[in-house]
């Protein structure tokens, strides 16, 4: 049984906490957030202890894994401190805002002999996994054209509105489409060159990015991410993989098995549900895989190096969107 402490009780913290309920080999023992109420709330179901100060938590509690669900700009500070104190670290994506921080994190993990992984959870989504295995089974020939989208309204829910501050979140290229970019690299190959456009903060409360990627193996990809949809829009993700012998298409809205419509207080709402249980539930699956790696001293599924690769491509896309020129990945 591995003991886990979690820091950052926002949306992702809540998601991870729910996941621990289904992980038999791990127990959440402590939750830390500067907002005491939020931390308390997550502790309830787990009988975990609530903290508002990281230092107090790490001095008082015995645990094996620190699960970091903080805003991106705080990742490296806490990850590196915990690693130096012998903790294994599972960190939400993106790994960090800069390559220097990201490399320092992976280096420290190696130096102190602790496990380290980053929450590129898309690789654990069963539909994305299934698409990759269909490709690997040769059903569509070699994948040559990939399109992904990840569209939603502007994230108004964040603490101190940190998503809107690109110096803290990196904007939608770094925060949103890094999911798809990691999936593309891991599943279809490394990236050679990128070209991207986005609003880059020029539009209030709306952001949108489109990235064109050329893979080293010659395939091309179109990656779109949006925080520009009207508030209340349903989150939607799609992909298409076109190969030399066939095609795969997925659309989380069109292919959703459950639609619930309600009208409470005059507000109409569409809810699309996509139930997944057991290891099909991706957040449980990614954490379970990490706990297993710690428990059995195995390699983690998503390595720090993978996260750095995705970060590099995203940073190149950001640069391209700012300069209007293509950027070659070294």
């Amino acid at each position, binding site marked *: 049984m591995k003991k886990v402490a979690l820091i950052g009780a926002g949306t992702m913290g809540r998601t991870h906490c729910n996941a621990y309920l289904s992980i038999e080999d791990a127990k959440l023992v402590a939750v830390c957030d500067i907002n005491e109420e939020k931390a308390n709330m997550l502790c309830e179901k787990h009988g975990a202890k609530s903290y508002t100060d990281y230092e107090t938590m790490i001095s008082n509690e015995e645990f094996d894994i620190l699960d970091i669900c903080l805003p991106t700009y705080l990742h490296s500070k806490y990850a590196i401190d915990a690693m130096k104190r012998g903790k294994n670290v599972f960190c939400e994506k993106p790994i960090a805002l800069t390559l220097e921080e990201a490399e320092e994190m992976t280096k420290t993990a190696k130096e102190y002999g602790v496990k380290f992984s980053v929450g590129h959870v898309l690789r654990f989504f069963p539909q994305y996994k299934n698409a990759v295995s269909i490709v690997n089974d040769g059903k569509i020939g070699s994948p*040559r*054209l990939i*399109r992904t*989208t990840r569209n939603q309204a502007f994230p108004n829910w964040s603490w101190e509105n940190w998503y809107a501050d690109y110096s803290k979140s990196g904007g939608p290229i770094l925060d949103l489409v890094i999911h798809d970019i990691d999936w593309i690299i891991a599943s279809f190959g490394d990236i050679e*060159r990128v*070209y991207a*456009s986005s*609003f880059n903060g020029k*539009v209030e409360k*709306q952001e*949108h990015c*489109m990235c*064109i*990627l*050329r893979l080293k193996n*010659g*395939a*091309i*990809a*179109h990656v*779109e991410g*949006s925080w*520009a*949809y*009207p508030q209340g*829009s349903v989150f939607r993700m799609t992909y*298409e993989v*076109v*190969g*030399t*012998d*066939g*095609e795969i298409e997925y659309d989380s809205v069109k292919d959703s098995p459950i639609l619930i419509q309600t009208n409470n207080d005059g507000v109409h709402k569409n809810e699309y549900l996509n139930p997944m249980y057991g290891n099909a539930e991706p957040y449980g699956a990614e954490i379970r895989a990490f706990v297993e790696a710690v428990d059995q001293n195995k390699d983690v599924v998503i390595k720090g190096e993978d996260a750095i690769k995705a970060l590099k491509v995203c940073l190149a896309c950001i640069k391209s969107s700012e300069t*209007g*020129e*293509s950027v*070659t990945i070294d």
Partner: protein
Amino acid sequence: MKTRIGVISFEHMHALSYTKSLVSMDGVELVGIADTDEYRGANMAYRFGTKYFSDYKDLLALKPDGVIICTNNSLHCSVSIDALRAGCHVLVEKPFAINSKEAKAMLEEAEKSGKRIMNAFPMRFSPSVIEAKKAVDSGKIGDILCITGINHGKIPSGWFIDKNLSGGGGVMDHTVHLADLIRWFTGSEYSSVYCESGNLLHNKGIDDAGLVMAKMENGVFATIDCSWAHVKNYPIWPQVDMEIIGTKGTLEVKAFAQVNHVVEESKNAFEDIVWNKDGDEGLVAEFVDVVRTGKYPNASGLDGAKALEVAEAAYRSVKSHKNEKVIHIEEI
């Protein structure tokens, strides 16, 4: 008096649908069909009950009021110029020409002859696209910020995949529809283009997959996926989609979404059959109206030339891997 229209060549299969639309219109006389392919041309002349000409110049000698030109792309320029000189208004299949130099010559000839030249952009007449344009123009979604365009389709055969006759593959064939719609919707001109493309899907020695990113003078950016991405047994051939992000909302339009999903057991076939009008009928009606009234056309030759500029810049970018400035027809 009837409006007299001729059709030059069925090399591009769209000629069939245009001609069907023509003969269904009141007050239109199909004066003849010219085609260098005698078998094809004579068959069509029989089908539509008109006269066959092997040489289009003999058709032009009948002094039709207008001609529809569906030759391969490399002949658009010379045939259009001959038709204009013969005093005909012209509707020419897209792409307008295989390069801007030719496009310019065609526009200059139209100016000189006082006749109109139209480019076949049927999407401007698609009911779904018209309705989407109305919604955007009404201000419902605010100002346009960016557009994602997809024009997938199946790979055509024959001269389409011979660069000398077509001027290029998917980038030439499929960039122009959306380049035109995006320019029409935004009311802005193109400033630069980036493109990744190649012979990736079909092994026919010509570009068949491409992703274009275009930037407009008003700051809007747009991508166009011009890939011949659909395999043979995909349920439908054409796909023209736009996702428009505006300051007050978003709009998604799929021009070929009005379909019935058909499963035919005996053929082991899944097919999406469009039940609404496509844009061909509206395009031909616009041309007939232009011929009758001499009005400036919707889907003009200039529109065609402007869309072609994007495809040309895209090909330059594929080679340079750089964001290429669009060279406007006025600059050459």
